[in-house]
């Protein structure tokens, strides 16, 4: 096999997954019973259900990669540790009192049952809740509907194997519509990444995508650019999942993104989120300190675990080097001129320095997406126009982010015309008033 096509070292992926599972064990031991309450920053609060469900989700993903005894043993140990929490009286009561959220409370139970740890009594109460009048008593947006449909499918038919149809809510979700790549919120990105996880089921019982993979991946690349530039590794890791969840090929941008995440993880010792603040940690002691660190860090660590687990599946492993297809020599250099005027520094820039010129040119599309996002967020529309010119000259304008930028500039041109017409109307009215006042 050529160096170019050599796959990422699987032992390295397994080591990263084991790290996530180890943190999972610690998080369950420390936080699963009471969750976490942060008196200073309520945004850091964690309900036990959230941690428990996410740990079960990680276990399910990890099970698809469990081809080493190290991983298998960790899954078994963590599953056994999680069971009493997943099926606690709190969870049972949640289903009794909130039948519209029965599947939410049952998520960890269903994942564990699928892993070979069933519980007939929990199923009995879940069935009763699901049969109640209030079962559909709460409206959900499409990706949350997909979550419910996925959980129902896991419950009714947990067996592996491709399914012929997509989930019912997939056509109404963002998987079937272009995302707003220039001004979307983090919640919008989560809508895409979660919808993908539910429809593809970690490739255990994957369903068809409602849109062509290439279209979704082109949008995912623009979202990845944003996450890398904002150093938002939580959503960035989820966006990267899009590649191994939907197919066997990783493109240059996704391999680069994966490299950035692994480098950051190696340097920090874990993949960090911005919610972990060192100044807060310094003030805390003992278990308060450990709980704060776990509560703010576990989630992004889990996301890295999900990513590595999926990347360990046969045929889903990224290449170790950036794949170089057809590139325009010098394209990265040209686009970096738009970015290097900006003092902002991000970890991806350090990683870029390690690439060869052809590798940099291979990720020119990602650099373009970063530039689009930065210029839009600052309202530098004149520069955006120049950027589109450069992209077109480089043959990089055939992307959804480029065409959405062009559409936005067209709308802004119309806005300017309307504004000008109004200004002229006001001026004419003022002139007329002046004429009339002099005549009187």
């Amino acid at each position, binding site marked *: 096999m050529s160096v170019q096509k050599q796959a990422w070292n699987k032992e390295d992926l397994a080591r990263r997954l084991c790290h996530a599972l180890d943190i999972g064990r610690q998080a369950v031991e420390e936080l699963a019973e009471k969750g976490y309450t942060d008196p200073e920053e309520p945004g850091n609060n964690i309900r036990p259900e959230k941690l428990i469900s996410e740990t079960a989700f990680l276990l399910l993903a990890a099970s698809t990669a469990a081809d080493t005894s190290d991983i298998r043993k960790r899954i078994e140990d963590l599953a056994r540790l999680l069971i009493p929490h997943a099926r606690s009286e709190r969870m049972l009561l949640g289903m009794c009192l909130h039948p519209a959220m029965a599947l939410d409370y049952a998520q960890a139970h269903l994942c564990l049952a699928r892993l070979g740890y069933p519980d007939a009594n929990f199923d009995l109460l879940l069935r009763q809740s699901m049969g109640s009048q209030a079962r559909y008593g709460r409206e959900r947006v499409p990706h949350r509907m997909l979550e419910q449909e996925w959980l129902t499918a896991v419950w009714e038919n947990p067996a592996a194997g491709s399914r012929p149809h997509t989930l019912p809510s997939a056509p109404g979700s963002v998987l079937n519509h272009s995302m707003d790549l220039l001004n979307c919120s983090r919640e919008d990105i989560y809508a895409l990444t979660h919808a993908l996880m539910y429809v593809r089921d970690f490739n255990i019982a994957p369903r068809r995508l409602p849109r062509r993979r290439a279209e979704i991946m082109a949008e995912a690349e623009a979202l990845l650019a944003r996450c890398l530039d904002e150093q938002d590794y939580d959503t960035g890791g989820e966006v990267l999942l899009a590649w191994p969840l939907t197919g066997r090929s990783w493109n240059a941008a996704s391999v680069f993104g994966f490299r950035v995440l692994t480098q950051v993880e190696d340097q920090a010792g874990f993949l960090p989120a*911005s919610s972990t603040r060192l100044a807060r940690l310094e003030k805390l002691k003992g278990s308060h300190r450990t709980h704060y660190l776990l509560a703010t860090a576990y989630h992004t660590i889990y996301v890295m675990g999900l990513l590595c687990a999926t990347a360990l599946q046969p045929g889903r492993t990224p290449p170790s080097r950036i794949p170089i297809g057809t590139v325009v020599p010098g394209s990265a250099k040209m686009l970096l001129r738009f970015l290097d005027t900006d003092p902002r520094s991000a970890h991806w820039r350090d990683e870029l320095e390690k690439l060869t010129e052809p590798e940099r040119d291979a990720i020119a599309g990602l650099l373009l997406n970063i530039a689009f996002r930065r210029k839009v967020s600052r309202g530098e529309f004149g520069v955006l*126009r120049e950027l589109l010119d450069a992209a077109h000259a480089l043959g990089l304008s055939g992307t959804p982010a480029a065409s959405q930028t062009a559409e936005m500039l067209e709308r802004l041109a119309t806005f300017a015309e309307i504004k000008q017409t109004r200004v002229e109307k006001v001026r004419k009215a003022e002139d007329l008033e002046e004429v009339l006042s002099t005549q009187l």
Partner: protein
Amino acid sequence: MSANGNRHQEIVKRLLDSKAVDFTAIGKAVAELGPSLAIAEEPWEGFCGTMRRFIHIYQIFNPEVPVEELGGLANVAGQLK
């Protein structure tokens, strides 16, 4: 290039071929309205609190500050098993 790629390219070309517009000036005008227009980060699931009681798995609170310096984080990583 795929049909979809061609479509995107055509949209870009349409803009590039259109009459000259001073987008820098528009940018300045929009900047005046910018802060009050920035609704994108308002979580829509918070509308009227209709969805606040869902268990939001796999979403994380983002305080919108940069990730801490990696060396500093490495010093505390030992506390994670």
